[in-house]
């Protein structure tokens, strides 16, 4: 044994196998000293005894990340494992009483890189000993020492055992399309959705960028843009990208914001929102779930009555923003999003207000690939064929795809905990997750079908009708 402290700790674990804090403490020490596989094994055992232990899960995540990001441990045995006769614990040696170290925050890994064409093997460090959690036959230092081990030969040996993380050379080139928190993103950062981008360019961005030309052709610059489509399909992300394209700040107001101060002076609050946007011009003011704020009718109770003032104020503010003569425009662009445009007060959709609409549909194949890639980028993978998954997830929203990745990871994690051996996410996990999931866009599409067929006399949902026809839903 090369590290007496670790040996002692392991001996203590062997003496008190049910002492979870001790086990986790030792796992933390092992992690700090660069033995992630052994740490993961301790965490797995801890999770078998205390399912759902948050600290164990955090440590396991760290260990898994270390296995993914760092070179695999040398094929030398780790410090003695708890319970092995040769490493018997000292009978009178109390287990370290200190609580397990809290896991430090997981550092974000860099974006996934495409696998080099000549080396389809997983990134460095993703070797079978690490995944399988198997100790190597010889004793020695846990971290690899240059010159002492032939990594190429080892990779060659395990090539048939563990498939590469991603199938397909171009899989790593897809762009992430979600969870960006800055208005600096551009439309080019949005994966797929070519039709949406084109329509945005024609209906909104082009005239904004070329105001003189737009005026020459009698195209009004007043009025906002309404994005609509099924939930979880990236309307907010597209709005952020529009802000990025305009070089404007992004100010998002959601239903929660409205409801948070519902009891206050709602009119005053709406005015304050627009004042804030004006102060921060150029600014894209994004009204999320605008159907909640500008609902068209009362259905059940008296809640709507209380919101009437807010809607009137919203109409007034939108008019003032859209009125160049008053000099109030001041670079405020109003964008809104809704899942149910048919519930939006028609007054809000009159010319000069939210008079342009863009349908944001479930992601297409390239967008799905990008989303899947993004959500899998920091997870241990083996043989994941992203294009194949994307082909099988038509009609899945971005949120559905994120959920799919989470579910597959949960299945792999559960298997790791159950067997006590850490293993990466593979296609069988994805298949299992897919069997349990259905696209959440179904109910929306059903309602959209009703709208497109029965409430499209004005042609305002022609794009939706065309999409439904292309899907053979009408």
């Amino acid at each position, binding site marked *: 044994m090369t590290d007496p402290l670790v040996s002692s700790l392991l001996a203590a674990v062997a003496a008190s196998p049910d002492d979870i804090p001790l086990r986790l403490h030792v796992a933390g020490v092992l992690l700090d000293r660069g033995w992630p596989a052994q740490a993961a094994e301790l965490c797995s055992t801890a999770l078998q005894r205390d399912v759902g232990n948050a600290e164990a899960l955090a440590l396991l995540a760290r260990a898994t990340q270390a296995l993914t990001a760092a070179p695999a441990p040398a094929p030398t045995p780790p410090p003695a494992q708890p319970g092995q006769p040769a490493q018997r614990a000292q009978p009178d040696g109390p287990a370290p009483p200190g609580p397990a170290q809290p896991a430090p925050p997981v550092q974000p890994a860099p974006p996934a890189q495409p696998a080099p064409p000549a080396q389809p093997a997983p990134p460095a460090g993703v070797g079978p000993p690490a995944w399988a959690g198997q100790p190597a036959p010889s004793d020695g230092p846990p971290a690899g020492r240059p010159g002492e081990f032939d990594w190429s030969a080892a990779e060659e040996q395990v090539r048939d055992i563990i498939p590469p993380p991603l199938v397909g050379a171009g899989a790593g080139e897809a762009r992430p399309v979600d969870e960006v928190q800055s208005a600096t993103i551009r439309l080019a950062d949005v994966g797929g959705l070519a039709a949406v981008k084109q329509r945005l360019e024609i209906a909104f961005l082009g005239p904004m960028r070329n105001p003189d030309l737009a005026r020459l052709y009698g195209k009004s610059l007043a009025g906002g843009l309404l994005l609509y489509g099924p939930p979880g399909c990236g309307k907010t992300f597209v709005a952020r990208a529009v802000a990025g394209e305009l070089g404007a700040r992004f*100010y998002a107001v959601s239903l929660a914001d409205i*409801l*948070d101060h519902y009891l206050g002076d709602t009119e005053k*609050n709406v005015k304050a929102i627009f004042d804030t946007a004006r102060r921060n011009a150029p600014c894209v003011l994004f009204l999320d779930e605008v159907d*909640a704020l500008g609902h068209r009718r009362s259905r059940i109770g008296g809640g709507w009555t209380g919101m009437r003032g807010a809607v009137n104020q919203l109409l007034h503010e939108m008019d003032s923003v859209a009125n160049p003569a008053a000099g109030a425009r001041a670079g405020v662009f109003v964008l809104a999003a809704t899942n149910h445009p*048919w519930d939006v007060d028609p007054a809000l959709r009159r010319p000069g207000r939210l008079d342009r609409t863009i349908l944001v549909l479930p992601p297409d194949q390239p967008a799905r690939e990008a989303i899947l890639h993004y959500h899998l980028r920091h997870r241990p993978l083996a043989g994941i064929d992203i294009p194949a998954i994307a082909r099988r997830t038509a009609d899945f929203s971005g949120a559905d795809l994120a959920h799919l990745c989470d579910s597959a990871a949960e299945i792999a994690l559960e298997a790791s905990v159950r067997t006590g051996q850490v293993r990466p996410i593979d296609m069988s996990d994805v298949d299992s997750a897919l069997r349990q999931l259905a696209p959440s866009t179904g109910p929306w599409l059903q309602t959209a079908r*009703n709208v497109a067929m029965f409430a499209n006399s004005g042609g305002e949902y022609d794009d939706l009708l065309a999409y439904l026809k292309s899907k053979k839903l*009408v």
Partner: protein
Amino acid sequence: MTGSAARSAAAPGDPGAAFQRAELLVELRRPGEAVAVLRSALAGHPGRADLWGQLAMALLAADRPGEAYQAAATRIRLAPEDEWGYRLASLAHSGLHRREQAVQLAIEAVRLAPQEWRAHARLANALCDDNRPDEAWPVAQHAVMLAPTEPETHMAVGAVAIELRRWPLADTAYRQVLSLDPSNGAARNNLALVALHRGGVTGAAAGFAAAVATDPQVDVARRNLEVTLRVFAGRVLYCQGLLAALLSVLLSNRFGQFLDIAVVAPTVALGVLVRLRWAALPDAVRGYARSLVRGSRRYQAQVALGAASFAALVSAVGLAAGGVLAPAQAVDSSALIGTVLALLAGSRAFRRH
């Protein structure tokens, strides 16, 4: 940037705010979120009867009548002299198909608040559910008397009138609702249902289409429209079968030169009538009918049967009109085939209705 600058100091634990947020969320058809808001508020204020009542409302909107009953029962314990809890509990019982209990609780609500139109409307609906429309009728009328400008009271009258099969009264009630609230999709649906019961298939189809357009999230009107189209198709096919059978009888009895007029005229009339009725349907309904056929092999089979029947009928007529060259057996066979296929297709169209 965030919206925090504009956020006022709303007290997150304020039960009054929670009540109003939940009310709005229910109205926005987000009852699940309303339930979460209310449960959170109730954790800090378990003695607030209004929150329990609103929770029951949200749970009813979320189609969870069992939990709604529990919430309503708590509301009754906290405010035993207030009718709202009884009314909510009655609604929950109706959702659980416990009709007698629903009536009893509605009666209690009326006893506690005899001037409250909602209690009377609830009692009328509960009696209606309990197959007691004769008793429900005066109660619904009384609700209208208490609140003549409330659409819900007229809705109750319409529901009772439908149970009593008093179609003109139901028609009037739902028209009254729509005059008060033109965006009421349920009233449009029920009005179309009345039209269907009165035999106006094309009018009913147009009404259901209008109901879907008014409120696309309520799918019942679209399903009703599908049923109406099946009724339409079934009637056409039965008429077709009747004509084919008539032709068969006429041929077997050899009515001579009157045969042409006796068979060709109704056949042409049927074709023209169907064409006119079809053209009278709104574009959306015709498009929907076509999409139904495209999307269902069952409907495709029915259309194929109907078309084959029509072809057999036409060929029988043609053979008969062709005179002596046509063997009588061939004409007879065509007519019989047309009869069988039409009746088969018609019965399939009416199935599940």
